[in-house]
């Protein structure tokens, strides 16, 4: 019995209450399965499109970011440290591991040649400028 007790020093803080409070995040947690990693946020300004990919703890050389036509794809493999099962035990394994690939469609208005990527705090920031001509233009109406 002592060993059983030692095996469970961790427990969630009242899991049911957590579920109640964090219902949204629990639902979203289920969404990030294979094919849905990494999480991505996308936004646009008048001048550029910004893509934020949440890929914690990866080496940038293990990441492949490609723009082909108007498809932006990110792929790589996340290798997580393994527990030494002979010496201990695993209690939770929630984080994504393994190969991943995600592709998003960019608006036609972007200029892929301008794409820049920065990896910071585990987030890959990709910035792509919009074509100048895609800025709103006033069309003159001539009367005949």
């Amino acid at each position, binding site marked *: 019995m002592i060993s059983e007790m030692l095996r469970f020093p961790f427990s969630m803080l009242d899991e049911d209450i957590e579920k109640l409070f964090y219902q*949204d995040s*629990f639902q979203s947690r289920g969404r*990030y399965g294979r094919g849905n990693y990494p999480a991505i*946020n996308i936004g646009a300004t008048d001048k550029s499109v910004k893509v934020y990919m*949440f890929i914690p*703890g990866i080496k940038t050389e293990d990441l492949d970011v490609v723009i082909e036509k108007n498809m932006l794809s990110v792929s790589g493999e996340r290798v997580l440290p393994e527990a030494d099962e002979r010496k201990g035990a*695993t209690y939770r394994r929630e984080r994504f591991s393994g190969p991943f690939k995600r592709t998003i469609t960019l608006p036609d208005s972007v200029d892929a040649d301008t794409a820049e990527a920065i990896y910071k705090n585990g987030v890959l920031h990709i910035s792509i400028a919009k074509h100048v001509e895609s800025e709103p233009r006033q069309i003159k109406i001539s009367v005949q």
Partner: protein
Amino acid sequence: MREEQNNPEAKASIKQTSSTTSVTQPLADIFETQEGATLYIDLPGVDKESLNIDVDKDVLSIKGKIALDIPDGLEATYMDIRSGRYERHFTLGEELDSHNIQADFKQGELKLFIPRSERHKPRKIEIKTG
């Protein structure tokens, strides 16, 4: 690691805990050996300054604010991550020594090691032969 009291932002976030406003629960892996417990927690988008780890009695709390470089006038068109904060709590067993937690935070990946307190470490009893 910072003390809760020194961080006004953390104080504000405590208030929000009791409401249902959006907090993302970060994903974690937990391993354990006879030496102690190791936690890995994914907190992408959090920088070291806005990460808060504290232990109150037996509850380990991890809170972080997502700080992205967002230009003025950015309009979101698609979002997997909708909340700006991560928060998660764990209850530590009494055999863990919460005064000696080691933390390492790199590129949004937090690693915590919590040693088992000395008196809870398994000891091998030597048998003397007479």
